[in-house]
């Protein structure tokens, strides 16, 4: 007991080592300590309680940013150019084909008359020509009905 009292005295003077302080701690944690030293049980209990406090909320790692590595970045750029390149090329080829089709089929209409009387005269002449070719007459068609 003298040793504990000596240690305690040196503890208050900050002359104890960590090992000696651990010895005091385990002594005062025991409930069967002498009456005159009983109050130091509180200090030992406080130390025990405080040392068991733990961080309940674990560290939250920040969300990872998507990192494009240089190679991946280069591939992305090439793919982007290829996509646009193929798009433009296909469109160009299509336009070229369409131009070709139109240039071959399109023939300008000859100038035609806009005079209604002339149109009627031409149409009548055309009908007469057809009748003659078929050996028919418009009247005979009517009588057959």
């Amino acid at each position, binding site marked *: 007991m003298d040793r504990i009292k000596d240690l305690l005295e040196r503890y208050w003077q*900050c002359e104890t080592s960590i090992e000696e302080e651990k010895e005091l701690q385990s002594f005062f944690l025991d409930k069967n300590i002498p009456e005159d030293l009983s109050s130091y049980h509180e200090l030992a209990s*406080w130390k025990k309680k405080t040392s068991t406090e733990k*961080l309940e909320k674990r560290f939250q790692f920040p969300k990872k940013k998507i990192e494009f590595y240089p190679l991946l970045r280069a591939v992305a750029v090439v793919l982007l150019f290829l996509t646009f390149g193929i798009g433009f090329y296909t469109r160009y080829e299509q336009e070229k084909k369409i131009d070709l089709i139109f240039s071959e089929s399109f023939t300008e209409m000859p100038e035609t008359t806009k005079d209604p009387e002339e149109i009627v005269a031409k149409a009548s002449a055309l009908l007469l020509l057809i009748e003659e070719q078929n050996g028919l007459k418009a009247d005979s068609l009517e009588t057959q009905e």
Partner: protein
Amino acid sequence: MNSDVFQKKILPLADKLFRLALSITGNKQDAEDVVQDVLLKIWNKREIWGKVDNWEGYCIRSTRNVALDKMELKDNQQLSIPEHFDIKESKADIQSQLEAEERMSLLEQYIEQLPEKQRTVFLLREIEEMNYKDIALALNITQEQVKVNLFRARQKVKEYFENKKSWIE
């Protein structure tokens, strides 16, 4: 940079940092926030991961600074035992509250009222069992200053017990 440094050297200090932050802020929620802030800052400063030798000291120092900033108590002297904290007024309580938990709570309140630097040194020695050299490195003070602060804190705790004993007697 190898993330093992963070996983193996820094994260295991979290509980210790939490106890320190708790002793400064006096509030679990604030203490958790302080630890998260400190660890996040270190996580984002990967360039220093390979350069710090004493991670315990670095983290303790950062935690203390962040906690003090949070509490706007950079001036350590702001936290001292207020005059109204008179243990004698609690004499009746001591006699009536015989439960050990309650007596310990009273001691806890008394320790919480110590000046911040004394309290931090007291905590690092009593709870974290750090030697004077490591405490000095962590708090960026001399070993002599560590001893002075610890001595003052222990003397106050001693006074607490002596006063209490005399009232009960």
